[in-house]
């Protein structure tokens, strides 16, 4: 970078510059707002009809009519701001956030692209119809629409690129961790194996020495050593599992027994309850070992977020051929400023965390062609969570 050069342009400034979008364009758009606004509803209905009636594109919309209603509202606001501006940096940041939402719900780039074009064609038709008697104005205003929609497309593409880059960074990080993990895991297995077998031998000795008891404190501490070794081994197993990236061996099993497996592996404190609405006949097609690890990690996180006391609420509903699990705790929720990073390998907010758990969960879900995400917090988004949702809600679709 040339340090003495002019201040670097922001992404938005650069593309505005490129498409030559000016204050006159903003003004032209604003002027025509009263004429185009009445057409928003049919444009939006057409937009979502195209997505919803398409088998593949509709897959990213799993929330039923309520979600569609929310998305339509978002698109209405989006169109309103598109035309009314102001087209400043704040505008850009907001648009980028909406773009990220499309990435998050998994709307493929090709559908985003063609859907944007639908909006363009419909909007331009309205402009042509309205300004036909004034050819010059018509051409200036339609050019302004072309430009602003080019900008929007560039912003959308940028958010898809950002997400790809972030996935790449995560993959690189995982590869690095993998190399470390294999070496360190092996090195730690042996010392832990020695401790474990020594505990076994000590227990035997104590048992035979003091038939019917022995010093309860000594036994307590031996148990404690044994339990801590198990915990350390679990961390290593997670780490190695993350590094190894084993392909899942999927079999049909009931969602209930999957959750039970996860709960038993999590070894939750006594004061943690799990309430769920899973029907006995709900089945999933999963690798039981891997997916129980996912739920076990989520339960452990939830228990920690609630300081070892409270209820984990699980709600399920069908999502196409898959099942959606919403796992909500009663903790403080995930702070907004870290929410987008929690699935990154080695990222942690816990004093004793390794940053492996959630990245392992994501990797396992990816291998299952499923998804795991953090539901937006009620306060910051109008998506309605369950009534009990005060804390963090993780959404697993598998």
């Amino acid at each position, binding site marked *: 970078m040339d340090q003495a050069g002019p201040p670097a342009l922001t992404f938005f400034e650069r593309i505005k510059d490129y498409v030559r979008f000016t204050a006159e364009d903003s003004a032209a758009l604003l002027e025509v707002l009263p004429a185009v606004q009445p057409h928003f509803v049919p444009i939006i209905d057409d937009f979502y009809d195209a997505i919803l009636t398409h088998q593949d594109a509709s897959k990213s919309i799993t929330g039923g009519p309520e979600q569609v209603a929310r998305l339509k509202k978002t698109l209405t606001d989006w169109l309103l701001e598109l035309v009314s501006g102001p087209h400043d940096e704040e505008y850009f940041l907001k648009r980028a956030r909406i773009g990220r939402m499309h990435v998050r719900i998994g709307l493929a780039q090709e559908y985003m692209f063609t859907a944007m074009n639908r909006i363009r064609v419909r909007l331009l038709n309205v402009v042509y119809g309205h300004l036909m008697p004034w050819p010059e104005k018509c051409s200036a205003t339609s050019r302004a629409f072309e430009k602003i929609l080019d900008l929007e497309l560039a912003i959308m593409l940028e958010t898809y690129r950002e997400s790809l880059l972030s996935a790449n960074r995560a993959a690189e990080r995982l590869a690095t961790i993998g190399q470390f993990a294999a070496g360190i895991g092996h090195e730690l*297995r042996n010392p832990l194996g020695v401790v*474990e*077998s020594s505990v076994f031998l000590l227990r*035997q000795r104590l048992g035979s020495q003091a038939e019917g008891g022995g010093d309860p404190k000594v036994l307590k501490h031996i148990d404690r050593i044994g339990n801590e070794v198990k915990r350390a081994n679990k961390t290593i197993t997670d780490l190695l599992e993350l590094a190894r990236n084993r392909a899942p061996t999927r079999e049909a099993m009931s969602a209930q027994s999957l959750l039970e497996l996860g709960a038993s*592996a999590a070894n939750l404190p006594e004061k943690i309850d799990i309430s769920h609405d899973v029907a006995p006949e709900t089945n999933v097609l999963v690798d039981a070992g891997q997916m129980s690890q996912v739920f076990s990690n989520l339960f452990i996180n939830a228990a920690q977020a609630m300081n070892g006391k409270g209820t984990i609420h699980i709600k399920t509903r069908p999502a196409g051929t898959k099942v959606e699990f919403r796992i909500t705790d009663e903790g403080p929720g995930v702070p907004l400023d870290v929410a987008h990073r929690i699935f990154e390998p080695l990222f942690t907010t816990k004093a004793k965390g390794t940053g492996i758990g959630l990245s392992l969960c994501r990797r396992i879900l990816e291998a299952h062609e499923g998804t795991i995400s953090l539901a937006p917090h009620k306060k910051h988004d109008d998506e309605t969570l369950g009534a009990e949702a005060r804390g963090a809600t993780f959404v697993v679709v598998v």
Partner: protein
Amino acid sequence: MVQAPHLLRILVVDDHVELAENIAEILDGQGYYTEVAESAEQALACLPKQAFDALITDFRLPGLNGAELIAAVHQHGNTLPCLVMSAFTDQETVEQARTAGAGVVLPKPVNIQALLVALHQILETGADAALVSTKPATV
């Protein structure tokens, strides 16, 4: 504890000698007779001196690895039942150990009960035991 009927002789090989010794001590407690070796080379030097009934070895060793040790033992028609312990239970490691003639491959950290069961099994069925465990012992 069930005592083994005869004093069956087990050779335990691990370069982490404390682990080998602990395993040996546990087996002693179960009525086996054990010897410890710290490397494949040491094990190979040990084997001709006395008759063993089974071999338990780590996979990763300095010098020859566990699979190569087993292959060397089995080279001259010796059918000594062998069990491999490994921190890596990926397909390749398991395959290598099995091809060399390991009856059982156990993941590290070795679950003691699983080890005792597996040892009993290979002693019963010999080196060709078809059981290969690749699942982590702690689930």
